[in-house]
């Protein structure tokens, strides 16, 4: 019974095998990927909370129980990831990037396994599977050299993270003799009052893994590279879904902090949580500050993802009912708007052939549907009501203020304001301003892409004005981790601690004022449309001195004053630490290699010296 949980894992694996065989037929590969996602979605419909399944794996000469357990959190994550994946793969049917469908399906299998498993063997297996499948997926980007470097960098970080988890899970196994996640967590909770440092050590081994996967400071350095140079159709998945695995893992372990009685507290928070709040805040600010000045649009939005994950981490680290609600809610919102933004970016890049902001401009005339999707996407990302990003940001501020974390809140607000800046920069440089003549023949994305874009627009507005559809399941999750859920007054309300927000009311208010605006616009005097070159130029004719649309577009050094302001920040390079580590390893490698000099006599000498050392060791012993 309940074997559909197993099929959640096996269906994508089988689909992946078929897709891999049909690799050369790109459309078939994509079609199978899409259908597998759709079938998996149907399987998820048949899954409900409380389902369990277990089987034994004959491993290490003994039976290792593999178990599955569907919690509120897992079913929420399953739904949002698979629905988004289905939309993305539907989009990818018309797409020309080098994303490999069978790798995406492997990630899907891992995705379903991670979210439903209740044993660390399965969790680790799926984690590693997801890791390598995504590493190989990153390899297929448009700029091969860079995507190779990015994939390698990502691989090293990711594998380092996996090994950290390796240590953690086996340490737990040594202590409890069990691989079951729930019983190990219960064990950790039971001893946290007695040996807080031990628990902290073990949990931090896991947290390093999760922070690397989610791209949290100081392990964020791989994020911009991997996001920017992954295939354009894979980046949405990377950013929207895969960054949430780290958040999921953190949510699994965070309930332990409730039991931390012995530890000192700061502002009513256990100090570990306090540190994590600050790590989240630093990530948010860092992502924002670095996003200002990117010229590669995918890199810009990669930093934006970083920033948003910082928000999520800061919120869930509080581990109060508002904090966790806000964190999960923001995770969903980020998945939706960042997924939509990266899909529109994929559309733009596939049509324009460049990802450089300074080479685009004025595309709204050519790609209106994409333009509107992007517009609503950045409105959501900037947290403008009634679109979907607002509620969660608002709840995050409230949860922080509740703990009197004033400076952290101010910095988060700074990050949010900054978000508006870089979002507008991307918006302007891609869609507004002067249209270059290179793009005179650019067309709107094909029908499939437009369908997906309309769908995403609808979703961003719908979940913006009807947040209850998300807040109710989030409330169940919050309850299941042992906190009081926020009251949900209705589908349209975001209920805060200090005040409520009635999202449909805002929607109505906006809609009506827009109606008035349009009425005023149409009853007033006529207007005529002019070409983009027909500008106010103080009486001069720019074309006379050889001005082209490209040179007339303001997109280089967009925020130069900010660059001057933040100049001291850019000298701090976290990246440098990892690169230094890499260089050091390489130098050591070159040095160690000199051991093998290629002379038989020296090799014999090694053997003899080794023997003598062993003999002396034996003698001494």
């Amino acid at each position, binding site marked *: 019974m309940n074997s559909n949980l197993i099929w959640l894992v096996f269906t994508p694996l089988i689909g992946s095998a078929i897709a891999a065989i049909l690799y050369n037929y790109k459309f078939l590969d994509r079609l199978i990927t899409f259908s597998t996602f759709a079938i998996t979605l149907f399987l998820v419909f048949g899954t409900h909370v409380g389902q369990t399944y277990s089987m034994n*794996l*004959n*491993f*290490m*000469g*003994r039976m290792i129980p593999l178990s599955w357990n569907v919690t509120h959190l897992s079913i929420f994550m399953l739904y949002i990831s698979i629905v988004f994946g289905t939309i993305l793969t539907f989009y990818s049917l018309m797409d020309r990037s080098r994303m490999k469908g069978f790798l995406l399906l*492997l990630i899907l299998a891992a995705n379903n396994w991670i979210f439903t498993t209740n044993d660390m*063997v399965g969790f*680790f*297996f*799926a984690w*590693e*599977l997801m*890791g*390598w499948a995504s*590493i*190989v997926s990153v*390899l*297929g980007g448009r700029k*091969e*050299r860079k995507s*190779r470097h990015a*994939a*390698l960098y990502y*691989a*090293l970080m990711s*594998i*380092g993270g996996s*090994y950290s988890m*390796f*240590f953690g899970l*086996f*340490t737990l*196994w*040594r202590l409890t003799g069990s691989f079951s996640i729930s019983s190990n967590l219960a064990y950790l909770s039971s001893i946290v009052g007695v040996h807080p440092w031990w628990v902290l050590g073990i949990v931090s081994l896991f947290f390093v893994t999760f922070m690397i996967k989610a791209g949290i400071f100081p392990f964020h350095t791989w994020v911009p590279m991997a996001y920017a140079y992954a295939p354009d159709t894979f980046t949405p998945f990377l950013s929207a879904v895969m960054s949430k695995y780290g958040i999921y893992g953190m949510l699994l372990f965070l309930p332990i902090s409730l039991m931390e009685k012995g530890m000192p507290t700061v502002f009513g928070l256990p100090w570990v949580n306090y540190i994590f709040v600050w790590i989240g805040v630093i990530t948010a600010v860092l992502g924002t500050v670095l996003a200002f000045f990117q010229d590669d649009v995918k890199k810009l939005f990669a930093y934006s993802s970083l920033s948003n994950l910082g928000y999520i981490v800061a919120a869930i680290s509080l581990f109060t009912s508002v904090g966790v609600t806000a964190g999960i809610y923001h995770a969903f919102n980020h998945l939706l708007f960042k997924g939509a933004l990266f899909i529109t970016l994929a559309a733009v890049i596939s049509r324009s052939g460049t990802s450089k902001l300074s080479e685009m401009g004025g595309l709204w005339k050519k790609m209106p549907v994409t333009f509107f999707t992007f517009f609503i996407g950045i409105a959501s990302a900037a947290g403008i009501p009634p679109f979907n990003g607002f509620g969660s940001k608002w709840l995050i501020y409230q949860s922080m203020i509740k703990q009197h974390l004033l400076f952290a809140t101010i910095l988060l607000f700074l990050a949010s304001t900054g978000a508006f800046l870089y979002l507008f920069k991307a918006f302007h440089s891609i869609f507004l301003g002067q249209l270059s003549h290179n793009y005179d023949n650019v067309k709107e994305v094909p029908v499939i892409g437009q369908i997906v874009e309309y769908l995403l627009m609808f979703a961003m507005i719908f979940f913006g004005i009807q947040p209850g559809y998300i807040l109710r399941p989030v409330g169940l999750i919050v309850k299941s981790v042992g906190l009081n859920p926020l009251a949900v007054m209705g589908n349209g309300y975001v209920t805060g601690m200090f005040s409520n927000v009635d999202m449909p009311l805002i929607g109505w208010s906006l809609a009506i004022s827009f109606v008035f605006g349009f009425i005023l616009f149409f009853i007033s005097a006529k207007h005529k449309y002019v070409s983009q070159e027909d500008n106010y130029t103080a009486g001069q004719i720019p074309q006379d001195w050889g001005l082209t649309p490209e040179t007339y577009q303001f997109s280089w050094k967009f925020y130069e004053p900010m660059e001057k302001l933040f100049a001291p920040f850019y000298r701090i390079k976290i990246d440098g630490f990892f690169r230094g580590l890499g260089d050091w*390893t*390489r130098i*050591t*490698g*070159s040095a*160690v*290699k000199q*051991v*093998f000099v*290629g002379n*038989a006599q*020296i*090799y*014999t000498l*090694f*053997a*003899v*010296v*080794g*023997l003598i050392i*062993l*003999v002396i*060791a*034996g003698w001494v*012993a």
Partner: protein
Amino acid sequence: MSIFNNAALLIGVPLLFAFSIPLFGLISKQLTKWVTLLTISFNATFSLYILLAHKYPSIVVMGNWLPPFGENLYIGPVAALLVSLISVMGLLIAIYNLWSIKKGDVTRFSVLFLMFTAGASGMVLTGDIFNLFIFMEITGISSFALAAYGPEKRALGGAFKFLVVSSIGSTLYLLGVTLIYTQLGTLNIAEIAARINQTTPGLLTFAGVLIVSGLAVEAELFPFNGWVPDTYTGAINGVSAALSGIGAVSGVYALFRIAMTVFGKDGTYVSSYGNLNFMAVIAVLATATVVIGELSALTQKNVKKMLAYSSMAQMGLVAVGLSIGNELGVYGGIFQLVNHSIAKTMMFLILGVLVASGVGENIDDFRGLWKRSPFLSLAFSVGAFSMLGFPLFGGFWSKFAIVGASIQRGGWYDFIIGLVLFASIVEAFYYLRIVGYMFSSDSKFPKLKTPWTPTIPIFILAVSIIAIGVFPQIVGTFSAQAASEFTHKMSGYVLNVIPTIAAH
């Protein structure tokens, strides 16, 4: 004790045919390769029959002299698994050789190859410590000659280095064996194992140091492994595959048969008699091997040399796993041995096909290989992923078990496994770099025409890596039995050979 004398054919048949091959060579040189193939396929079939029909544990007695008086072969779970591995690898390499060995002295190559397989099988099967030396030398001499085979002069240099270091190693081993003989007056492994506590600890330690040093040469442990990079790089690819897929297997087996069964103490964690804990010594050597091997491979631009260093490091990982000394660790070590043997053999064979089709050995020559030969580059990636321990590939399970075992053991093994995992990150870098190069599309060269003969073994090996990755029981069942044999010295080995011996 059950007696299964037919198993002696596993050594006898290849040796018989090895020495009669020159006769076939009179008819046709190409025929000798087919004779080799058929002989080894007999070996493979028979050993797989023993493994799958569960004909073990059993012994082979020579001339009805029961051990400890007569020489015997012992077929336990370890021997059955490893002899199957050796024979199957031998068979696959022999298929490859049908295509690869065309010119030159085909007849003698066939003789040497059969001898090599027979010697390696003998090392794994024998129950006598001196016969182990003999088989070691058979394997050794044939592998020196094999390593020197081929048109390139670097093969000779490599073979010579191998020969010198290996000769020293076997001398050390022989001295150690002699010392043990002076103490106990017997050469039977089971009897020595049962009576090892009757020796003088000082002499036993000295003998143990000599034997461990001697066998570490074959098992490629630092600092006794100087020969590895040059020999692997110098030899033709088929021979490199055989050295890493067959030779190293028997070397590691011999090392741990002595360290665990002969010197070991029964217990949760195997430790050894004598003043020095040889398991700990091996663990240190193996860790050094892993770290040094991976670091040396890191900046290597020559793929073949990189594979050689990686081979060394992987053998170190195997030894780390085995030296942990609990059942899980030995399980992981044996599993890793199988995985490494499969993957490294396959990668050397792929390299052979590539080099023969005009692709160079340098990493830059691998650019865009995906477009030129999808099958080979996919298979190479599968091998690399298995090496890195990615799930769905065989290597995942063995690495998982090894790490688990060392953390289970705790103490300074935490530190060891930390170093090993650091080295694994280094390994990930250079393997993934090759994979990245292969999947780039900036190659201007035409498609490769892959001959179908060498494709068969490569295909079988690649599929088996994935099969093991998805169904680890394929190897897991046997390596679990093997782990039980290695960690239970009396019930697992001694009492199966000499049931009457008094427990010490």
